[in-house]
């Protein structure tokens, strides 16, 4: 479970994140929806302790992120916006590197790698060097290495960016599977259809603030819009006029 309370972060005079609060529950997929530059990535970066919040609290499974960042990172699997692989290492070696950094012993590491390589259907690329991987193969490898330590919570920043239809679909299946295992999945996106297809709960962010937090159908009802896309546009417009 990931709890975020009144999170703030500014860069110079820009308030990138301006009082964000939400909760991502176990066994649910929570979508962080917002236009480009809304503060999604900065919010996520504070969740996986790459950045320290100016104010507010982040708790992962009850552990405070500022007080004990290492313990928080141990409980998180992270697919950041930047997802570069080591090109001179094979997919398996990329996964193993992160596994060792998590302190896994060699037997556990091998077992977990096998499970993930099967689950993500990447047996044919497992022992190839990452140099020349397709976008889809890169994302698969990055997800595998993020999950190597079997984390209860998963944070993905725009996971389907640059993926084709088939890859997106198999990623979606995979995220459902993780939810089925009772994990807490939090991902960000600016694509409506993706959120509808995936999420149990949507947190809409605009201008660094949460402007809506509900199940997809509830959002639709509240704004009186037929589709979630219309609802999204309506919510953003309302928040903009409120800010002005």
């Amino acid at each position: 479970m990931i709890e975020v309370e009144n999170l703030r972060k500014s860069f110079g005079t820009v308030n990138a994140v301006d009082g964000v609060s939400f909760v991502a529950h176990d066994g649910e997929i929570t979508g962080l929806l917002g236009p480009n530059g809304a503060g999604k990535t900065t919010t996520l970066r504070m969740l996986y302790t790459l950045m320290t919040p100016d104010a507010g609290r982040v708790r992962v499974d009850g552990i405070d992120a500022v007080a004990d960042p290492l313990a928080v990172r141990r409980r998180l699997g992270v697919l950041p916006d930047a997802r570069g692989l080591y090109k001179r290492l094979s997919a398996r070696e990329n996964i193993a590197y992160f596994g060792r950094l998590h302190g896994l012993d060699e037997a556990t590491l091998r077992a977990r790698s096998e499970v993930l390589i099967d689950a993500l259907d990447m047996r044919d690329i497992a022992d190839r060097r990452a140099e020349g991987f397709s976008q889809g193969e890169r994302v698969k490898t990055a997800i595998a290495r993020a999950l190597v330590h079997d984390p209860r919570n998963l944070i993905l920043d725009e996971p389907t960016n640059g993926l084709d239809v088939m890859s997106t679909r198999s990623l979606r299946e995979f995220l459902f599977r993780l939810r089925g295992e009772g994990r807490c999945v939090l991902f960000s996106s600016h694509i409506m259809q993706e959120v509808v297809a995936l999420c149990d709960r949507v947190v809409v962010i605009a201008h660094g603030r949460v402007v809506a937090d509900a199940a997809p159908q509830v959002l639709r009802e509240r704004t009186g819009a037929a589709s979630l896309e219309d609802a999204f546009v309506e919510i953003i417009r309302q928040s903009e006029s409120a800010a002005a």
Partner: protein
Amino acid sequence: MHAALTVFWKEVRENLRDRRTVMNALLRGPFLFPVLFLVMFNLQISAQLKDADKPLPVPVVGAANAPNLVAALTQMGMVPEAAPRSPDGAVRGQRDDVVLVIPPGYASHWNRGQTAAVRLVYDSSRRGSNQSAQRLRQMLQRYAQTVGAQRMVARGISPAVALPLAPEDRDQATPRSRGALLFSFLPYLIVLTAFLGGMYLAIDTTAGERERQSLEPLLANPVPRSSVLLGKLAATASFALVSLALGVVGFAVAGRYMHVHRLDMVLDLGVHFFAITLLLMVPLVLLLACLQTLVSAFAKSYREALTYLSLLMLIPLLPSLLLAVIPFKSQSWMYAVPLLGQQLGIMRLLRGEMPGAADIAACLLGSLVAAAVVFAATLRVYGSERLAVSA
């Protein structure tokens, strides 16, 4: 500690698979520099020792006009050669260094006891030509002096009358001290070898990792940034040390082919030299690894980092230049200055002396302290939020 080791082994493995890094770090420096040094050194020695003993081939125009002169010059080491059609053209065309022209009127002037003219055709802007002309001029002067003295004696005058002053040269420079000037660049080349050995890793593990967008996921692992940094520094320093060790072996091998004996020098680049040099260099290697990583951490891309580090590479040149231009007397405190200490220590080893224990200790301590300071600065930069954020 475990995490730092993991980072270390991964960096070592990944960079060993990179042909560019291996070529630059482990092959180019350690092999190219000794060969370069060997060639430079031998050329310089040959140029300096060329003179004196070697016969001097000189085309002579009008040799028949002065057979005695030619015979006397031949005794002094000149080898008369057939006259070229155009003396000026032969020198200008660089076919000959110097041509001696004896004009037809030589014999009549000579026989009447008048000053007879001979002409030296040479090109003072060419080093070889200038040297040859100087040698020939000395021979001519010696001959002229001898004959002049004989003529005065024949007329009952003491030759000393024509020699009111006899300046005597005593150049204190020896071939050996001139050679030492060349040797003062050896420590720089050794430092440079270590610098180049670590440079590519310092860039790859920091700016390169950020450019490839892999730094952010790496830092999302439950590992303190100090451990990550430690692993990366260890990998950088290890490459630098291996490169350095190979380089020193390279110089030792090159030393066997240097014609140092012609300078009355004994160049001992044996086990002793190897061990002490490596010992003196270890803290400097650590300092360089930290410095290179620190500088790379400010660069946004691999290329940018490479530019910065190329500038940084000039710093190790300073002590060498300083010592070459102003050969100051070494003082004990200088050993505590990083780079300068290593320079002095290695120079001393090259002269076949052993640096004192206090000097070695000062050298190690001074560089270690500097390394610790730069390490602390690098750690600060590594801890900053902006480090991992690529955009």
